[in-house]
């Protein structure tokens, strides 16, 4: 991880040098990123050379579960507008519930209750516009 941060810090510092427009301001947009970037490079380099602590990465089976959850979360951001709020949220709650080890029918039931309830709370009660039906179903 130290290596990754070192590379990012180095790129960051180099990029800072390109913002060389100074008018009316003594430091300009360049100096502060360099002040941050250089110690960051030093610190990450020292972590590469003298690492501390060991990390127990989760077992592969767990990792799959995490990836599945991430896929659901990203999927939600992609489906929210096409499918509309209640449908996408139903899928989100049901799927995450199942991934977390809930009985499937209970998770589906929870999603079926909570998704419309949340929509009613936010859209109807609080006046936040949330599409009930997504772009897929509503022809312009």
């Amino acid at each position, binding site marked *: 991880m130290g290596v990754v941060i070192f590379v990012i810090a180095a790129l960051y510092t180099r990029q800072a040098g390109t*913002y060389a427009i100074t008018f009316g301001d003594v430091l300009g*947009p360049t100096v502060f990123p360099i002040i941050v970037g250089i110690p960051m490079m030093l610190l990450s380099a020292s972590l590469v050379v003298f690492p501390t602590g060991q990390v127990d990465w989760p077992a592969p089976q767990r990792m799959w579960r995490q990836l599945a959850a991430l896929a659901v979360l990203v999927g939600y951001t992609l489906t929210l507008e096409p499918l509309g709020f209640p449908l996408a949220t139903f899928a989100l709650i049901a799927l*995450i519930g199942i991934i977390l080890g809930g009985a499937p029918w209970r*998770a589906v039931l929870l999603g079926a209750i909570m998704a419309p309830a949340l929509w009613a709370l936010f859209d109807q009660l609080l006046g936040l516009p949330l599409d009930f039906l997504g772009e897929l179903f509503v022809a312009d």
Partner: protein
Amino acid sequence: METLSLLGQGFVIALSPLNIGLLLMGCFVGTLLGALPGLGPVNGVAVLIPLTFAFGFDPTSSMILLCAVYFGCMYGGRISSILLNIPGDEPAIMTTLDGYPMAVQGQAANALAISGVASFIGATIAVIGLSLFAPILARAAIHFGPADYFALYILAFATIGGIAGVDPRKTLLSAMIGLVLATVGLDPISGVPRYTFDSFHLYDGVEPIVALVGLFAISEILMLLEKTLKDRPKAIPVGSWLPQWGAIWRTRWAMLRGSGVGFVAGVLPGAGASLGSFMAYVAEKQTSNKKGTFGKGDPRGVAAPEAGNNAASGGALIPMLSLGVPGSGTTAVLLAMLVSLNVQPGPLLFERQPDLVWGLVASLYMANITLLILNLPMIGIFTRLMMTPTWALMPIVAAVTFVGVYSISNSVFDLEMMVFFGVLGYLLRKLDVSLVPLVLGLLLGGDMERNLRRAMSISDGDWSILIASPISIGLYILTAGFLALSVWLAVRDHRQSQADRLTEG
């Protein structure tokens, strides 16, 4: 006297029907969030912030609601510590050491009552301290110039690095990642877009609320997924909720000592409630563990850390309100909310918006009384709600998080940013890198850069202005002291890591 009359006006504001309603709701939700394992004050407040935006409350009411939640979490954390031996949130870890053994010995009612009263005393002492010291600190901070603020921010990062307990290099690195993120967007002074990768979404910079919710709430879901999902141990059944009052009275000195230690820990920037309860427990053990009863269900071992964590959480509000430098993770999140509502905490807050400050302080007094009532006679409700299974709780939290963030800007890009920050937060937590300095860097980075550049403009490019005033020199000396202390602690911890792991487990 001036403080009293300001406080009186504060009570007038806090007693409006809306604010009382929010206070009650916040106390209830907070206790529940605290009691539920897996959701702590930082996550809870982070998830609720977008919701307060959605409701459209003014800054005072939003703060009253969220601070009630914050205080409530501190009360609630002990419930699952005592009954389940699982800390409801991080600061409640120390309470498991003596609280669970007490419950096993059939003294659950006493343990709950002692910790409830201890929470009340700790939090009340902290709020009194807040009313007395915050205005004084704010008055002193009026004299700070741009160079002094720059020094103050450096001090804040150094203290966080020192006290967090892990490798100080990682903590500093975390703060720097935050500073890097803070420079994304249009440069505030010259208007040059920086690190935006030509994406217009990034021109406004990284929205702190989106980053926070991702870092804390989404990463918590990922953390949860790697743990075993076996059913939680059954809670210890409690026959009667009525405690023995004598048992509470006997722990009075432990409560007072714990409050004092916790309060000091809370005021230090970056220390926070977890450290407050830890230090309170250790101090109490050193003064009164004469018969070796600590760790086996000594009531004083419950009273001290609970008083400590509540006192620390109140104390942490002092630097946040009067200097704009948060003292803990949760106060950092509260700071992010205030900034998003266009309220800039700091010395001027006390002059320009006394209604907000004193309304909040007054409501905190009321919150303590409400929480004492919620946590003593009505504790049965929470012990039942606490058993909500994780598989049902977390999906709802995820959904509420998404709606809340989506409602701020109606932008799917923000949701994607949130998931990205969730992954980042998860990876950093796995690597033992504390997230609080990152948040602090993200929040303070803009101001830090602006103050540096303002100072340099005043001096016309002469770097020596940074150490020209006695205030900044004093702050740099403190910084150097803290850094030295943290290196010393890290070296010592390295030697003692074996022993530490035993107490943490």
